[in-house]
């Protein structure tokens, strides 16, 4: 639905050149929620603004709904932009317009009649739970309500794509959750592709199907959400996820770990499972079929976009030569297992 091909952006001021985006390639499938995460100044806003050409890339092609936006005339581009909704960190509502009138604005710009506008706006206010606020002015709304108005407004022209520039960064935890739920809801109901940028890993964890990590204008990692959380490839990705998932060994064990087996040592495993695997009683299997007992040192269940992700750190007891077989068995069950090290038996 969105395809960015070889996007580069160079900001020039006088003789200074700053390369804000470097060779970005990205594909967002129809109906997908795609997250871009990165630290402040990484180029996230610049990147998302390139998608509707609020920022013109210095080089590269932007294809949205099969149209190459970079080659369109001004008029054609304006037309295409109507199919791309956008919401912002600071909501950007018109203070002199009511909630209803704010949502109606894009429709007015298209020259729709009053009756047509009402017919389109009212269901959107219902969808975003704002019916009773339709006559209020933005100044009288809470942050979450303002963002709902902005979402309703972005949906007014029935876009195929929704861009979210730090849509929840100005909101508290609880409100963030409700806005993310709303985004999930419209993604499902309207089969809308959503591209969102954020610096909060919790947002990614909550709603994204895929995620890309951007650092200094480059995408350094891209993956589906499970792989991203369970097998981070870069240290930056690891840094992001470790604030959100309990991944690590309990610290009192960390120091006592050997890299290789020694006499009487036991393997410490990290077992990560999700989806179908979570339904299998694989711990029981390990015991029955391989005679391996597990001592659970740490376990927790995380939710990645509604699906459970279990992370366990276990000490094997009397695994010995059966360990390799057992690990192979787990892998056939789509359970991700990894030897973290070896510790003494006691």
């Amino acid at each position, binding site marked *: 639905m969105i395809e960015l091909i070889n996007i580069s952006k160079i900001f020039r001021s006088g003789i200074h050149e700053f390369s804000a985006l470097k060779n970005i390639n990205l594909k967002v499938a129809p109906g997908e929620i795609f997250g871009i995460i990165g630290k402040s100044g990484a180029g996230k806003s610049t990147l998302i603004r390139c998608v*509707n050409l*609020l920022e013109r890339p210095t080089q590269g092609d932007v294809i949205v709904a099969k149209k190459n936006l970079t080659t369109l005339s001004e008029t054609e*581009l*304006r*037309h*295409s*932009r*109507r199919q*791309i909704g*956008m919401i*912002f960190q*600071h909501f*950007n509502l*018109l*203070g*002199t*317009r009511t909630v209803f009138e704010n949502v109606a*604005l*894009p429709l*007015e*710009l298209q020259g729709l009649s009053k009756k047509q506008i009402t017919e389109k706006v009212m269901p959107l206010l219902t969808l975003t739970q704002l019916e009773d606020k339709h006559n209020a*002015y*933005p*100044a009288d709304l809470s942050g979450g309500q303002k963002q709902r108005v902005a979402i309703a407004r972005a949906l007014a*022209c029935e876009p195929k794509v929704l861009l979210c520039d730090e849509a929840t960064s100005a909101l508290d935890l609880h409100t963030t959750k409700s806005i993310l739920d709303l985004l999930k809801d419209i993604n499902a109901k309207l089969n809308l592709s959503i591209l969102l940028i954020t610096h909060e890993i919790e947002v990614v964890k909550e709603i994204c199907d895929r995620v890309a990590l951007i650092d200094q204008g480059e995408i350094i990692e891209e993956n589906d959400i499970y792989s991203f959380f369970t097998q981070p490839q870069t240290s930056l990705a690891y840094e992001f996820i470790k604030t959100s998932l309990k991944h690590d060994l309990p610290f009192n064990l960390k120091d006592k770990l050997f890299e290789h087996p020694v006499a009487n040592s036991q393997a410490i495993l990290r077992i990560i499972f999700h989806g179908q695997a979570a339904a299998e009683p694989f711990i029981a299997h390990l015991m029955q079929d391989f005679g391996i007992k597990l001592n659970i040192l740490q376990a927790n269940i995380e939710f990645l976009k509604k699906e459970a992700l279990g992370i366990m750190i276990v000490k094997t007891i009397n695994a010995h030569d059966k360990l390799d077989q057992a690990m192979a068995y787990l892998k056939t069950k789509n359970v991700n297992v990894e030897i973290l090290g070896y510790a003494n038996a006691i």
Partner: protein
Amino acid sequence: MPMLYEFLTATWQTLYMVFISGLLAIIFGLPLGVLLLITRHQQISENKYLNGMVGGMVNAIRSIPFIILLVALIPLTRLIVGTSIGTTAAIVPLSIAAIPFFGRIVESALSEVSQGLLEVGNAMGATPFQIIRKILIPEARPAIINGITLMLVNLIGYSAMAGAIGGGGLGDLAIRYGYQRFDVNIMIATIIILIIMVQCLQLVGDFIAKKLLHR
């Protein structure tokens, strides 16, 4: 009561001068202000030369003391109105002084509209004209209303000067009776009427601006 009649006429003349020239200033000053803003650096239709030229003209007119403008514009006034004396004639210099003043007020009011809102317009696929009409001007309305009040109050003062050189109105009355015949009571009475006028204007202006602000 010939004196009361003179007061009523003079008040009417002042109101007439102020409101007609105010109206003209709004009609011409609003597009002027829009032009000054949109041609600025990094604005909707950036144009350094046009902005420099129009801005320069605005500054030039605004730097001429009104009393001199009044005299300098006599030929133009004659051309437009047919005479350079009288209330209607005074409207020409008053408007010409007020247009650039109001233009700058509009420009500054529009520049206060957040860049984010213009971005919203762009992202929605609005044309530059739609952005100006549907976003820029409506969002700047409270500030523009305050500017109109300010301009009208200034025009009351300027109209008194115009009156002094034959334009009529309260200024003319105050000078003829108060200054030339040392009639202090008349002087005080005109000042009181002027104060009431300004006060009312300010109240109405503030009220409208507040209504539009929604804050």
